[in-house]
């Protein structure tokens, strides 16, 4: 009974508010932002949320979509595959039809299956694992490239520009890290460069010096690391301590501001092009700076674009029906901060690419020569 009273009270309050503001007359369109707010890689979540929030704020300032405001519902999976199904189930039970995220491939995988079963549109702006688009999910999209693009791009650079004598490839046994490391290995082998070492490390360990000594003994002069930044920071530091003298390279998960200091100087990373440098995005870059956020963060622009695409698709489809929205996304081309975006039938961004950057000790980056 008490419950009912609360509902009535809430409805009355809402009705009273609505008399005042007609913009809210039809309620809101809820969008779940499935991010990593906690956990060791929460920095990815910061970038993701920065991009999504600004895009939604700007869209709402222009009247939202279908005459309704977009409402963000924050969710946190900490990039843990164990936590993401709980997030997905909450999205389903809250009857939310659209998800921006998840951030990490490993945690996205189990959640994506749940979204697929419930016809929920999901747009990730940072999950690069190839697996995600191989299941034939009709409502899956991403505004970032795949590891099968990023791995070969890295491998291409290694073989033709870096030309190492002895290459070592290390990964962290996770969906993302092992995936991209395997891609790199396969491509360099095809090009005739056989890595002298292909090893896995344990996520969360604090001592990799035995591995560094082993690399040193093998005379390794180039290391590709597939994984996230917490382990990479320790690897870089311990390699520096032992004076390994090898060049390091990592995927886009390595590019966060915690990777800094002497040991990080010269690290190579494959990243989406730096869209914050595009003249067309000057206004949006200003808006980020006004909020004291760094628009050049790897996932900031891709996340902004993911929100843009979703909102435009809701407007274009003239519907909140996720199936119609997904259908519209498959058939149309979107103007975003990433340029014109089109999706393949699998939901991948058709013209995604990766550039090679050099990371510096102050955590800034420049395009690799």
């Amino acid at each position, binding site marked *: 009974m008490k419950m009912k009273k609360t509902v009535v009270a809430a409805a009355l309050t809402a009705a009273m508010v609505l008399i005042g503001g007609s913009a809210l007359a039809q309620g809101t369109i809820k969008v779940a932002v499935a991010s990593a707010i906690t956990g060791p890689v929460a920095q990815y979540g910061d970038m993701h949320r920065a991009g999504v929030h600004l895009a939604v704020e700007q869209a709402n300032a222009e009247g939202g979509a279908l005459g309704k405001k977009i409402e963000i519902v924050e969710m946190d999976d900490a990039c843990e595959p164990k936590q993401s199904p709980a997030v997905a189930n909450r999205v389903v039970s809250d009857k939310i039809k659209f998800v921006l995220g998840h951030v990490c491939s490993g945690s996205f995988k189990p959640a994506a299956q749940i979204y697929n079963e419930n016809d929920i549109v999901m747009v990730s702006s940072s999950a690069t694992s190839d697996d995600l688009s191989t299941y034939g999910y009709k409502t899956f999209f991403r505004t970032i490239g795949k590891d099968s693009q990023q791995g070969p791009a890295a491998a291409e650079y290694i073989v033709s520009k870096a030309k190492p004598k002895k290459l070592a490839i290390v990964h962290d046994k996770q969906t993302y890290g092992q995936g991209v490391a395997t891609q790199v290995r396969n491509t360099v082998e095809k090009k005739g460069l056989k890595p002298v070492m292909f090893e896995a490390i344990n996520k969360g360990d604090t001592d990799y010096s*035995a591995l560094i000594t082993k690399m040193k003994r093998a005379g390794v002069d180039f290391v590709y690391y597939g994984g996230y930044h917490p382990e990479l920071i320790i690897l870089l530091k311990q390699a520096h301590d032992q004076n390994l003298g090898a060049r390091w390279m990592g995927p886009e998960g390595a590019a966060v501001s915690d990777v800094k200091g002497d040991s990080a100087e010269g690290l190579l990373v494959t990243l989406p092009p730096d869209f914050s440098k595009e003249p067309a995005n000057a206004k949006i870059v200003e808006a980020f700076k006004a909020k004291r956020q760094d628009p050049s963060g790897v996932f900031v622009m891709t996340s902004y674009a993911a929100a843009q695409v979703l909102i435009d698709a809701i407007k274009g489809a003239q519907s909140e029906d996720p199936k119609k929205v997904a259908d519209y996304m498959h058939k149309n081309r979107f103007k975003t901060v990433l340029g014109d975006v089109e999706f393949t039938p699998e939901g991948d961004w058709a013209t995604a690419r990766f550039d090679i950057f050099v990371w510096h000790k102050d955590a800034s980056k420049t395009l690799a020569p």
Partner: protein
Amino acid sequence: METFFPQFLQQLINGLSLGAIYALIAIGYTMVYGIIGMINFAHGEIYMIGAYVGLVTLTAIGTAAGYPPWLLVVAALAIAIMVTSTYGWAVERCAYRSLRGSPRLVPLISAIGMSIFFQNYVVILHSSRDLSVPELITGRLFSMDMGGFEVSMSNSRALILIVTVVLMVAVTLFIRHARMGRACRACSQDIRMAGLLGIDVNKVISFTFILGALLAAIGGVLIGLSISKINPFIGFLAGIKAFTAAVLGGIGSVPGAMLGGALLGLVETFASAFLPTEYKDMVSFGLLIVILLIRPSGLLGRPEVEKV
């Protein structure tokens, strides 16, 4: 293989400095077990809290204030020891003393509860993100060219080794000669008899928890300085490894904990040196099983004779 020896030497350095931290934490497990016959499962968290107190101290003083690095390290260690010892004492007061005499499972669960409480407490206080610890100790102590292979040791690792060795000697001498050390040994032989003979058993037990926390705090600060990042979950893995080291060496025996720590560090290091790195935990825990099969009370543990 002419580069075998220098590489072996380098791995020895790697392994010993890794094992040193295990040994520091393991002493806490082994002393508590030696006296009250129970495992303090909150001990890994004490180590983690030590690392956080060290970081908070460094941040409070400010690394840019111009004090020499060694002074900052000493200050971080001193404050971490003081604050963390209080936590160690509190664990005993809350999770053990009030349950003394109850079935063994009860304090076990209350210690696990303390461990979860501490983890979440630090998460709320400092967020669950990785925090970076300023790099105070940089550079290498030595690096020498041996037949084309450069063997080196960083200052942070050297510090871990030196501090650990000094503490080990100090703890051994203390237990052997000091009044409180004698009391600890008496309690570990027969706690009821020690009480009847006028030893303040409660004080001895509190002291054991404080000593364990102190050593774990030093380990926490040193590891924070060495890998320059910490998070609230580092205590779990370190605790498990140190517990393993304590069991390996013979739980209840202080020299055993030292030996077990060093051995575990070396085995892990050499396993990842000569096998693919992912096998290292399999090898070290396989070894643990084998040793326990042959010597059920660990390498130096003698259950019927004295413990501690």
